[in-house]
């Protein structure tokens, strides 16, 4: 995503994840403040699901549709169809994913008729976090892309949300009689915690892979700038190894994140000090 306009897309990604964190903490906060009161908690969960989907949609709209995230074949196919058809398909698949999630939740033991509103809210939450978002980012072949592990953000998030929702079922049988043990709050909270954890993990990956090298380079540059450039030496080869390391590291990180980069231009000597 961030390979074309580099900092812009990366910033967008970081911003999106931070917003995700804020939303998640916000909805948890609302639920706790309401004293786990079921009706209002369900309302805030539904609002949160919509908000998250909207955020993803806006990010998708802001990111240029270069579709490096979509595999080459999918890209070729996309061109054949009109954009409207693609959008319609994504919406249809999203609705299907909500229904499918609901069916699976019921199969895993939720009541069929009783508490149907609560069950549906949970399905909406899980589907929007784990399926609709990848559908928006990756297009209609999202399931396959997820299984092929082509996009680390969607993969980590979907996986974490699903597992955390599943694990959220475990406290239900305990006879503590706490208000948060009510169906579907444990699973919903699990889902949101999974989402938060995945966001934090993703942010930390972005930071640690890019960050440490960047700091090294900055330190070296400062040194060079202060000690040499200002004293009249314009020879910048002293920072070359660190810069190469930095470059390599960025490449590795992008590769690890499965983000395709068409080409990284060789940096000209002029860019470097200016950065």
């Amino acid at each position, binding site marked *: 995503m961030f390979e074309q306009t580099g900092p812009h897309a990366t910033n967008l990604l970081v911003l999106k994840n931070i917003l995700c964190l804020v939303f998640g903490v916000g909805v948890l906060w609302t639920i706790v403040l309401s004293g786990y009161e079921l009706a209002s908690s369900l309302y805030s969960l539904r609002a949160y699901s919509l908000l998250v989907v909207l955020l993803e949609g806006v990010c998708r709209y802001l990111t240029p549709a270069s579709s490096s995230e979509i595999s080459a*074949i999918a890209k070729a196919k996309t061109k054949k169809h009109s954009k409207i058809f693609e959008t319609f398909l994504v919406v249809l698949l999203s609705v299907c994913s909500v229904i499918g999630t609901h069916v699976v939740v019921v199969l895993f033991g939720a009541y069929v008729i009783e508490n149907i509103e609560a069950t549906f809210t949970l399905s909406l939450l899980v589907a929007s976090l784990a399926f609709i978002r990848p559908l928006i980012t990756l297009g209609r*072949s999202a399931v396959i892309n997820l*299984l092929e592990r082509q996009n680390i953000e969607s993969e980590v998030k979907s996986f974490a949300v699903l597992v955390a929702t599943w694990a959220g079922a475990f406290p239900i049988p305990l006879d503590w009689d706490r208000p948060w043990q009510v169906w579907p709050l444990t699973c919903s909270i699990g889902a949101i915690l999974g989402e938060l954890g995945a966001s934090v993990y993703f942010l930390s990956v972005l930071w640690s892979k890019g960050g440490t090298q960047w700091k090294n380079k900055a330190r070296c540059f400062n040194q060079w700038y202060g000690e040499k450039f200002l004293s009249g030496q314009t020879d910048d080869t002293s920072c070359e190894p660190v810069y190469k390391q930095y470059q390599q590291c960025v490449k590795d990180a992008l590769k690890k994140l499965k983000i395709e980069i068409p080409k990284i231009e060789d940096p000209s000597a002029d860019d470097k000090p200016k950065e």
Partner: protein
Amino acid sequence: MPPFRKTIILLIDALRYDFALYNASLKDDDTLPYQNKMPVFGEIVKQHPHQALLSPFMADAPTTTMQRLKGLTTGSLPTFIDASLNFASEEIEEDNIIDQLVRHGRRVTILGDDTWGGLFPGRFSRSHLYSSFNVMDLHTVDRGVLSHLGEEMGRGDWEVIVAHFLGVDHCGHRYGPNHPQMATKLAQMNEAVLQVIAGMDNDTLLLVLGDHGMTQTGDHGGDSREEVEAALFVYSPALHLPSPPVHTLPVAQVDLVPTLALSLGVPVPFSSLGKVMEDVLVTAGMSAEEAEKQRHLGLHLNVQQVKRYLTAYRELGNSYPQDLWHKLELLEGKALEKSSVGGQRTAFSEYLTLAKLMCEEIWARFDVQEMLSGLCLMLSVLLMAGLLIHSSALTDIKTHIIKRLLILTVVVNLLFALSLSFGFVIFGYAANVLILLWMYAHRQHLTVSQLDFKAIDCIPLLLVSFLLLGSFSNSFVVVENYVVAFILLSCITLYLLLLMLEIVSKKLSSGKMLKVFGNAFSVTCGTGWAAAVVCVRCSGWFWRCREEQHWCLPGQAQVPLSGLPQHLHNWRYFTSVLPLALAVWLPRRWLLLCGNLNGSRVGVVLARTVPVACSVLVAVWWAIQAVMAAHNLDLWGHVIPPRVIYAATAVHVAVLACVPLLIYELPPAASRKSQPLVSDNPSTLIPHLYKSLMEKYRTQNSKGPTIPIVYGLATGLSASMVAVLMVVVVVVVLVAGDGLSGAVLLLVLVAAASLLLQALWKLKTCHNLKELARPGWSAACLWFTLSIHGFYLTGHQPTFPALHWSAAFVGVEGAQSVGNWAPALLVGLNTYSSYLLLGLALPLVVVAPLALSVVFPSLRGSRLEGDEISRGEFLLVEEPDMLRESLMSTALSYIFLQAAKVFCTSLAAFVLRRHLMLWKIFAPHFIFEAVGLIVTLLSVLAGLGFTLRVQAALASWGERLVKAA
């Protein structure tokens, strides 16, 4: 001078307290079948408040008739494990009220249940006893009692009459309390009580009592309120009770013995722990002072007797809790000090109550040393099994190790038996040390060769360990049926997910959904998953509610056909027969598809006919039961069909064990002609596949020009197993009852779907036969979870009230003819049907991938060499070592998990032995799991033995064929 000269005891089996209550505010239309049907008690209490008393009569669990009779006559507390003796009525050897009466010249007449005759042989002066064993029979005992009761009361030669009615209990077992038959039965009992009251003398005491209650399904045995709260009605014209209290206080059942003894003027039996109902000792003729004196005397005698017993018990070397014993001595001293009669009486009462409390506590005493030694032994055996599974000892099994292992087993068991019988715990620890030493001595064989845990093994193990840890939490044990279903669903879904990952990773970057998931393999995966998941979810219909699941509504599946309302009969019959038919038809279809039901071998003929015939007979039997429900059953219709089925099953299994081959060789002469015939039927691929196999033989010895064509060789191993399982399934359905035939079908379907998923996973990921034939931990975990799920699916819960006692009477009439082991065996078969079925079917886990790859070649994975694999299970026949090894490792893993469950439940019962819920939740859970492990062990052994037998038969057949060629 005793207060009463004569006593009549009407023991109405399973007379619950609310059966006897009269609620005037209820209208006739609103009453349930068991409400307000015995107005006699209410009326008498209302008319003669000083002569009559109705109160709850609290039984001690276990609430089985036999245990209750012991408690009611000896006055002692039952011990927990005694419940098992219900089927074996033994003579009472302790001191008891009947012996005391007889010894002091009172003549006792007994009418009714013949259990009394077994408990007290030769004590009764007159008796009219009737067999109690056929619970389907509501009337024989009651009619017998009623026809003789009036006559016996009229005779002068008795001091005590005991009349034991069984109809209410049997009605409960057969129809449950909510049935019109119950109303009729209770009205009949009401009439009987009225008649007795009309015929009573003035100095006669009448006691009407229930020995226990019943649950909403009509069963009893446990300790729920409905089961322990029986009714007690006391009436005599001579009685003078103090004015009735606002709330009737419950009376403990042990209190009957001292009351009865003192009111008739005989000594209280030695081991009685009850407290006399002192008010019953007061007759109308006494003055207030005399009455007070009488009460005091009664209590004093009672205290002396209890003290004598406690002292004697102490002198035998038993100890009491210090504080309680001290308190008792203090109380006794206080009672003697007190000058006022009233003060002494209070002290006596307190003494008796405390003594009973103390005994209740020490009777449930724990021998921590023995428990620890047992737990250690289990742990070390588990460790050894775990090492064996992963060690090199399995890959090349050496006979001398097996021999030493057997010797070790024998020695360890002997040591443990010694420690049990002589009470030397040290032997238990010695056995433990011995095992560890053995393991150390054989460490080079037990070294773990390769530990390659993949995600498919680790995650199910993690899930199962959740399940095992749940044994330590009472809330998880209470809802274990939900937890197990959840874990099972998770395991199945994990298979699907990993399979999907596998499929996608093999078809890299082909973005289209249909291309990736449109092939036969993916569709089969999806279908298998969906079928399994839906079946698991539907199992909720058949779950039984345990007492603690207050939200749970009992389903209709637990009610037998005859207990349902009339308009549901046809529907129920249809929904029972259809699953039964499917459960037989589906495996039969499979065998036909594999070509294993051709020809005229003995085994083939049996496999074609016996399961079908048995299932038809089961359906006929259900119909007979339903049609004849209104009448008293004919012996033939009731007993003969199940017995025929048992016999046919035994013959079927025995014959298949002798001649297990389910294959068909086309006669060589006809082979050429029949070749086009074979290609006419594309579904029988086996001959074609086998042809390639025989090609090899032909090239080896080229002189044989004819190619033998054999049907069903590629599934030769599993086919015999399936044929045996088919008929076992029918027997299980028969014993489970008509309501649960759907549950058994669901169990079979989930097992089949699990086998399918497991086989698909193996076919997708394995590179060679060795990997293919080794199912690993994932399959063991799946199978283990499934076996526990099956336990709940077939309507069971690990509590004693939830046992299906009705299964004891399937094909058994009367206790005398068959002994007591047959009913016990049938109840065991009913309870552990899933452990039995899955244990027997365990070898299928090993052979399923091979069978599947032959019957559906399109599912064969690309990684496997196509030519070899087409020979199917015959590959394993030719590699007996590999077969033995993989069977052994699978069985060990499965048993390991089951034993780990037992270990966890027993550890939970040990650690939480002071927990409030020990007797309700943890202890029964442990007992059920422990018996389940024994069933598992036996059935797995039988399954393995049978498979090896089939393998040997197939191998020798193959040799003969090669020689002939």
